[in-house]
């Protein structure tokens, strides 16, 4: 470690803030960690955009992993799929750029016209991480726009399964806003016009009373027909299917309230309940908005299509041509460059295939294939280009076949929520009380019978009940969000509270993909470190790659006579010295290896060994012990079982550790657990877990960068919050408790109201006080207690 107390020594890359290597890349008087960062800086300073660095320190993101080929964007068919609008002059496209993270990003992306004047306008939507670009298509092509973005370090994520399109056509939130606005507008005005009546009008002012009544009624109509429309539709469709949900008593209450108010106003017998009606709808809609509100823009519905590229390079008559993935046919010859993904099962025709299947199978060691062998889709080519012939179309490949499984067809049963269960009984009891009250009075006084019947339906309208779930769950959702646990919707919380079985995937889920580092035992001087580094960087083996990362030298020497024995070790001649890295057996040592160990032999001197340090995610051990107390723990790994021994202590039962599981086996295993009435939470990360995540009651994708691809799931957990899982479960259980309590409170309010209602004594004033009061109590109670519990669970 270098000392950092001297001001003159820059240790951070000026662009991305990464640690500088031994030999940084200078430009002007700034230091950069890699050529990529330096390149971005030079582009920006050339175009007078250096303010980018003023708004934030180190605003850039690391440019070490740079790709890519965007030639497919020149294909008119693909481009047409992506753009929002195009005519003879301009094209508008919305791109998703995951690295957007600070105000500098906004500033730079909105000044793209300075880099290329052909870009007319660009607007950033920060929370959605999207930029909408308008460019003159005569002067610049879509591909050039994207390449420009890539050059300044803002690589857009373009996938076949574009969520941007879906967002743009989905205006449900805007519609909800309009409904809330109408309800709120009417509520305010009706409130004002109802006050005179509540405070009492003398007989001289009877004219006003009628006038106010008529205006109130006019205000009630848009609320009834527009704002509350969804409740009637939902109640009706559910009723037709024989389901009594909460919308039924709500719709009934609203309808009865309107009819009775209209009757009273028209016959001039009373003031009606218009203000209660409007406030009810207004609060209900706010509850709906709370429930729907998203604090983040993550996609929970991704499948293999968003993992795969948009297009592949097809070889036809010796020419390279980008081809959209869905047009790929059996028999096509394709070219896969280094770091690209193989999109369909294919036969290797040319080149050295060394493929990383870790995301697909969970196996962390790269696989080598020889010519003529079948290569399964989903592998990432590590070095050099290869040529393949497609043998199965994309949708029928080994990996993608998983999505043809039943679990993916159709909607899964919606999660059963407390309010659904409660409302069924609630509706029946409510109607029963109303009828009883009506029948009781019908012999003595018909008017009173009608008054009591309607009053019961009005006062018991479960507004507070309808609000208790959304407000509690929305509060918990935002608490989880702050702790980097992102849920698809609020009902996931209730499902989380019911979990009794937890299934873990191994690679990437409980192991840390960015391994903490290495312990070195032995002696190496600076020169020898350099030799080891130069040798190791030739290998694609994960241990070599991690070693290279850990040593963090700069390439210096060429390696001659490089040899690699897969899974055993590498050797070569570096700067005239014979260097060997590998297992004890490979180096001819007698020592036994425990875990992942790399021994070093330079010439004939044994220099010691590297051992990869603790590979489990931080806090996995206490986490497993804690979870094991309340839930049944299982492990499903696609990997070989070389970690079986080290994992045994964490899991209560050895027979619940399963290795070498195929994606289909994982799915079946979950299904089998569920058939034994288990409520299963699956934690996984890769495509091979996709089936299991989908099948489980609660699929959680664990990822270290939430913008990276994660398979379809109910929740996304940031790796940093991994050890908080028990707290999340506790909080979910507490949330359900809060809902039960607030349900109790709203029932209490209802009993008070019913006491007057059954006697036919409910006055509009009483309703106007009781209804908003119960609503506000519930809103305050739920949001405050949810936060209180969160503090107790150390989530706030």
């Amino acid at each position: 470690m270098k000392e950092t107390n001297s001001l003159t020594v820059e240790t951070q890359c000026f662009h991305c803030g990464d640690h500088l290597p031994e030999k940084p890349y200078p430009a002007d008087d700034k230091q950069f960690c890699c050529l990529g960062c330096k390149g971005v800086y030079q582009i920006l300073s050339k175009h007078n955009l250096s303010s980018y660095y003023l708004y934030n320190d180190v605003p850039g993101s690391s440019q070490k992993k740079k790709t890519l080929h965007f030639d497919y964007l020149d294909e008119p068919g693909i481009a047409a799929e992506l753009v929002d609008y195009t005519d003879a002059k301009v094209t508008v496209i919305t791109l998703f750029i995951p690295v957007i993270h600070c105000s500098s990003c906004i500033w730079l992306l909105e000044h793209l016209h300075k880099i290329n004047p052909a870009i007319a306008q660009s607007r950033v939507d920060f929370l959605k991480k999207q930029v909408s670009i308008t460019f003159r298509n005569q002067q610049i092509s879509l591909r050039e726009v994207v390449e420009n973005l890539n050059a300044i370090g803002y690589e857009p994520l373009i996938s076949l399964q574009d969520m941007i399109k879906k967002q743009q056509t989905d205006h449900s939130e805007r519609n909800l806003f309009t409904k809330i606005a109408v309800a709120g507008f009417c509520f305010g005005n009706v409130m004002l016009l109802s006050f005179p009546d509540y405070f009492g009008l003398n007989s001289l002012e009877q004219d006003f009373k009628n006038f106010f009544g008529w205006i109130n009624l006019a205000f009630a109509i848009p609320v009834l027909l527009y704002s509350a429309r969804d409740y009637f539709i939902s109640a009706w469709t559910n009723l037709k299917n024989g389901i009594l949900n909460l919308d039924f008593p709500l719709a009934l209450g609203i309808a009865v309230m309107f009819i009775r108010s209209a009757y009273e106003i028209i016959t001039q017998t009373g003031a009606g309940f218009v203000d209660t009606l409007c406030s009810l709808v207004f609060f209900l809609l706010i509850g709906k908005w709370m429930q729907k509100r998203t604090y983040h823009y993550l996609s929970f519905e991704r499948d293999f299509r968003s993992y795969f590229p948009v297009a592949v390079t097809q070889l036809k008559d010796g020419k390279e041509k980008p081809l959209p993935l869905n047009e790929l046919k059996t028999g096509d010859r394709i070219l896969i460059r280094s770091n690209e993904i193989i999109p369909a099962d294919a036969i290797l025709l040319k080149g050295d295939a060394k493929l990383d299947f870790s995301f697909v199978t969970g196996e962390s060691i790269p696989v080598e294939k020889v010519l003529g062998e079948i290569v399964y889709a989903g592998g990432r080519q590590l070095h050099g280009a290869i040529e393949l012939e497609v043998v199965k179309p994309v949708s029928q490949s080994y990996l993608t076949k998983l999505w043809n499984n039943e679990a993916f067809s159709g909607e899964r049963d919606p999660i059963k929520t407390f309010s659904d269960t409660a409302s069924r009984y609630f509706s029946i009891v409510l109607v029963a009380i109303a009828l009883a009250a009506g029948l009781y009075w019908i012999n003595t006084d018909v008017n009173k019978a009608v008054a009591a019947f309607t009053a019961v339906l009005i006062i018991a309208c479960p507004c507070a009940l309808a609000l208790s779930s959304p407000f509690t769950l929305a509060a918990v959702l935002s608490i989880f969000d702050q702790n980097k646990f992102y849920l698809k919707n609020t009902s996931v919380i209730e499902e989380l509270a019911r979990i009794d079985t937890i299934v873990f995937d191994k690679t990437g889920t409980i192991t840390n993909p960015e391994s903490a580092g290495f312990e070195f035992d032995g002696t190496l001087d600076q020169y020898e470190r350099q030799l080891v580094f130069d040798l190791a960087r030739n290998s694609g083996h994960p241990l070599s790659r991690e070693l290279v990362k850990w040593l963090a030298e700069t390439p210096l020497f060429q390696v001659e006579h490089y040899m690699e024995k897969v899974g055993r070790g590498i050797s070569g001649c570096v700067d005239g010295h014979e260097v060997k890295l590998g297992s004890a057996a490979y180096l001819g040592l007698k020592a036994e290896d425990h875990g992942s160990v790399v021994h070093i032999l330079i010439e004939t001197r044994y220099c010691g060994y590297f051992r990869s340090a603790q590979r489990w995610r931080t806090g996995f051990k206490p986490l497993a012990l804690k979870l094991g107390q309340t839930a049944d723990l299982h492990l499903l790994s696609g990997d070989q079982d070389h970690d079986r021994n080290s994992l045994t202590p964490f899991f209560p039962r050895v027979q619940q550790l399963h290795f070498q599981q195929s994606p289909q086996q994982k799915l079946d295993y979950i299904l089998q657990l569920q058939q034994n009435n288990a409520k299963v939470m699956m934690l996984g990360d890769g495509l091979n877990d996709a089936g299991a995540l989908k099948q489980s009651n609660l699929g959680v994708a664990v990822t270290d960068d939430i913008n990276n691809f994660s398979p379809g799931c109910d929740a996304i957990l940031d790796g940093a919050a991994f050890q908080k899982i028990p707290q999340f479960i506790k909080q979910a259980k507490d949330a359900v408790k809060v809902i039960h309590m607030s349900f109790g409170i709203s029932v209490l309010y209802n009993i008070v109201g019913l006491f007057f209602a059954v006697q036919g004594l409910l006055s509009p004033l009483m309703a106007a006080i009781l209804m908003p009061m119960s609503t506000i109590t519930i809103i305050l109670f739920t949001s405050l207690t949810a936060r209180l519990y969160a503090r107790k669970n150390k989530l706030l």
Partner: protein
Amino acid sequence: MNMIYMLIGFSILLALLFLLAFFWANKSGQHDDLFTPGVRVLFEEEEPQETGNEEKSDEDHSTR
């Protein structure tokens, strides 16, 4: 007292105007992104270019 009918009518009309304004704002997507515009206003105006148009800058709005 008949004035009240008119006043109430006017006040409702005025309130309706605001409601319509909200509809328009909502429909044109002004509530779709509530975060970015707040950051955008904090950016400095374009710094004067070297081409020599510094003189044009408004005296009252000098940067320092």
